């Protein structure tokens, strides 16, 4: 109740109007599905969803028409791999940073309670056209960081689009370090964790199975929410040969069963191949590679495995020994090999500068004109920051494009959104027009003119 009242107050304060029917006309429309932009298109948003988009779309009689002539219209940007909403200030600001935990739990960690819909970082990115993001926890003492969510950046208190959408694990240099110093240690920890999850299923007592009967397969514990699972109930038993807490093991059951995506951060070519080979051992895993700076060297094998990649767009430094082959052509080369690639902010101001994704996407377009480099088309570059990251975690049918039925996440840009110089002028999330004011825009307005006035700056609001 309090929450609802608070939300209502916030809504009133921020003043986004309730979802209504909009027709955005006359703009250059890009769908976000990889197709090229179309001039003179119309986008219709109805009941919070995309009703139609493209040239020749009829404007419904009841629609509020927004003239976007000279503007660009696209789906909202989707943060491919972020920690958006988890940290207000990253360094030396006690309590404001919830990106990682050194507590006793790992895989069981759910990022949802850490997401603050009112974080200034969310507002700043919303104001720059970022409407959704994959939000991952960071690792603490274990290679498993916990369960990530997909969020929206709307100016309301309901930020979670999909809770516990994926588990995040480190299996490269960072994972090796956490596991005790070697990749072998990380891999055995990983295998052991999945073994413990599997055993948990075996030991969990089916609730209604009679004594002596074989447990019905349908009554095996299906863990929708690990926090409410019967494997944690009073009858649950377990082997004594375990490393994980019961909570953590339970959280890995959906991963093992392929009902929760497994995002794996690796950079080095050999690490990528090790991860791909996990699919042979655990065929149900729904693996998504994160990082993959050396992916281009083994791109055909990633493509053959059908594993999507959320990559850093423009990493080109041998910043560590797992990225010696880093090049900005990585994304373009993986894409040509048939890999599904999207762009994320891996270890790159991932709590706050998600808006840089569109600049990076523009840089990938630029590579088309650099001899010897591999870039991507404009339409593909936009897809890599809209529909592709959504598809990587199975939400392509819901967010990331202007296809009919998708959520009404639409941005009207002052110009080509892949140019950093363009700005988001209007942002809709679930069909609701969003406020674009931020702490920063307020400071800008306060200090726009410096000459001394009758009262101090603190009175200028």
């Amino acid at each position, binding site marked *: 109740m309090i929450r609802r009242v608070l939300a209502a107050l916030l809504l009133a304060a921020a003043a986004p109007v309730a979802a209504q029917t909009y027709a955005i006309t006359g703009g250059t429309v890009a769908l976000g599905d990889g197709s090229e932009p179309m001039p003179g298109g119309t986008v219709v948003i109805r009941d919070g969803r995309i009703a139609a988009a493209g040239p020749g779309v009829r404007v419904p009689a009841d629609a509020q028409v927004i003239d976007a002539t000279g503007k660009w219209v696209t789906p909202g940007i989707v943060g491919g791999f972020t920690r958006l909403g988890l940290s207000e200030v990253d360094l030396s600001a006690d309590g404001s940073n919830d990106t990682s935990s050194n507590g006793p739990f790992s895989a069981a960690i759910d990022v949802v309670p850490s997401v603050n819909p009112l974080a200034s970082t969310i507002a700043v990115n919303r104001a720059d056209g970022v409407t959704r993001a994959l939000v991952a926890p960071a690792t603490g003492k274990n290679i498993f960081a916990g369960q990530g969510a997909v969020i929206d950046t709307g100016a309301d208190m309901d930020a979670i689009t999909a809770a516990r959408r994926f588990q995040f694990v480190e299996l490269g240099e960072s994972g090796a370090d956490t596991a005790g110093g070697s990749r072998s240690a990380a891999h055995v920890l990983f295998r052991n964790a999945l073994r413990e999850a599997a055993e948990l299923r075996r030991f969990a007592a089916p609730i209604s199975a009679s004594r002596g009967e074989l447990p019905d397969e349908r009554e095996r514990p299906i863990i929708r929410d690990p926090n409410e699972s019967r494997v944690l109930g009073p009858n649950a038993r377990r082997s004594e040969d375990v490393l994980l807490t019961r909570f953590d093991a339970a959280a890995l059951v959906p991963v093992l069963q392929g009902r929760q995506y497994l995002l794996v951060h690796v950079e080095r070519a050999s690490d990528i191949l090790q991860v791909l080979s996990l699919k042979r051992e655990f065929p149900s895993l729904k693996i998504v590679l994160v990082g993959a700076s050396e992916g281009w060297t083994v791109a055909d094998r990633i493509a053959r495995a059908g594993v999507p990649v959320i990559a850093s767009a423009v990493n080109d430094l041998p910043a560590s020994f797992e990225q010696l082959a880093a090049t900005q052509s990585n994304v373009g080369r993986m894409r040509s090999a048939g890999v599904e690639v999207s762009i994320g902010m891996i270890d790159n101001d991932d709590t706050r*500068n998600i808006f840089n994704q569109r600049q990076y996407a523009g840089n990938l377009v630029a590579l088309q004109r650099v001899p010897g480099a591999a870039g991507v088309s404009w339409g593909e570059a936009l897809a890599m920051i809209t529909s592709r990251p959504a598809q990587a975690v199975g939400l392509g049918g819901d967010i990331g494009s202007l296809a009919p039925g998708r959520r009404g996440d639409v941005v009207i840009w002052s110009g080509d959104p892949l140019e950093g110089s363009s700005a988001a002028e209007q942002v809709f999330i679930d069909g609701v027009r969003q406020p674009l004011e931020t702490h920063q825009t307020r400071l800008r307005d306060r200090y726009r003119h410096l000459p001394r006035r009758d009262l101090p700056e603190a009175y200028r609001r």
Partner: protein
Amino acid sequence: MKAGGIAGAALALFALSGCAVMEAKPKPAPPIRINEDPYPSTYQRYPGALTVIRHATVFDGEGRQVNDGTLVFGDGQIVAIGGPELASPAGAVEIDGTGKYVTPGIIDVHSHLGDYPSPGTQSLSDGNEATAPARPEVWAEHSVWPQDPGFSRALMNGGVTTLQILPGSANLFGGRSVTVKNVPARTAQGMKFPGAPYGLKMACGENPKRVYGSKGNMPQTRMGNIALTRATWIKAQAYKRKWDKYERAGGDMPERDLAMDTLRGVLAGKILVHNHCYRADEMANMIDMSHEFGYKINTFHHAVESYKIADILAREGICSAMWADWYGFKMESYDGIKENIPFVHNAGACAIVHSDDPNGIQRLNQEAAKALADGIRAGVPNLSEATAWVWLSRNPAYALGILDKTGTLKAGKMADVVLWNGNPFSDYTRPERVWIDGALMYDANDPTRRPVSDFELGQPGEGDVK
């Protein structure tokens, strides 16, 4: 003690020669001159052809744009800049710049390439001598690893021809900086920009107090920062008086102190102060301190709150080196705004786009593009692409004390030139060729004009486009 010994020996000499007059004081020994450049630049420009670029859009770095412009350079220098009427000298290589842009090379006033190189291993992390809060005795050039692969990325993707490499900001006095040409060399001396003055890295704010406060040492607070910095300047003043007197009058040579040598250089106006400082109120404190001790702050680096005191900075003649849109990564950057650079420029103060980052240094032109667009949207008057280029080359050259040598396309200056394959204020544009002192150091169409560091030889991706 040693100096006393020498003086004693001199007295003995007088006695032996029999010229000593009873009443007369012995003539003091003439001062020994200390070598102020013991690690001199050995940089030599590479050969280049007499070159003419025609039909390009030219930003001269001083705020002017020349459409259908012509640029002539040879013998390492800019020869002439003009329109289509400008004649080509005999024997010049002609380049058609139609649809392309020509600019001065970008200058980054804030880099840690070489002292925090790639790979970022502990064994190569040489940017912070975080063993005491005042370490003006260390020189960044002695940490610079010339094989850092980052230099080549800054050249090929960023069009960066000159950069200042600074010590880190753990210390109140971080040490001397070094300005280098972005030309690969076997030694740091081989990259050093000939004739560039030294800089002194200073820092205020969170970093020094965090690093030392967490060890239970001073400084633990901002007031501790200021007190310790002032106390150090007081020592430096005394040192300067002693040495000035010695250099004037000779006599007993005072003991040399490397740390104080650097600070004396600042007080004498020979070494430029580059002050890491985020918050407006802290910048004001540092400005007062500079008045108290009689030195000049050349540039505030990471100055995310310069927009709050841009009028003061203009009056003081202090440059601000800024990011386009970084904010909130720590408390002192919480009030970062996207209009900082254009607001500082609009107040008549010196604005600079800087990187502090081996990735950011590859896209400084794009950072300027964002700042320019944000400024125009906020209604800042008289902004243009040609004006914004001043933030990328002219102002940084001024801040580094090398504006007489580079930073603009003026006849007689070093031919540090970038030919871009389109408008450099677009994300779709890349350097096509980069010349440093008239030598072609990068050509996108010629894989043999692509530097590959020792570190990358024989490794995956050697010689690849980056």
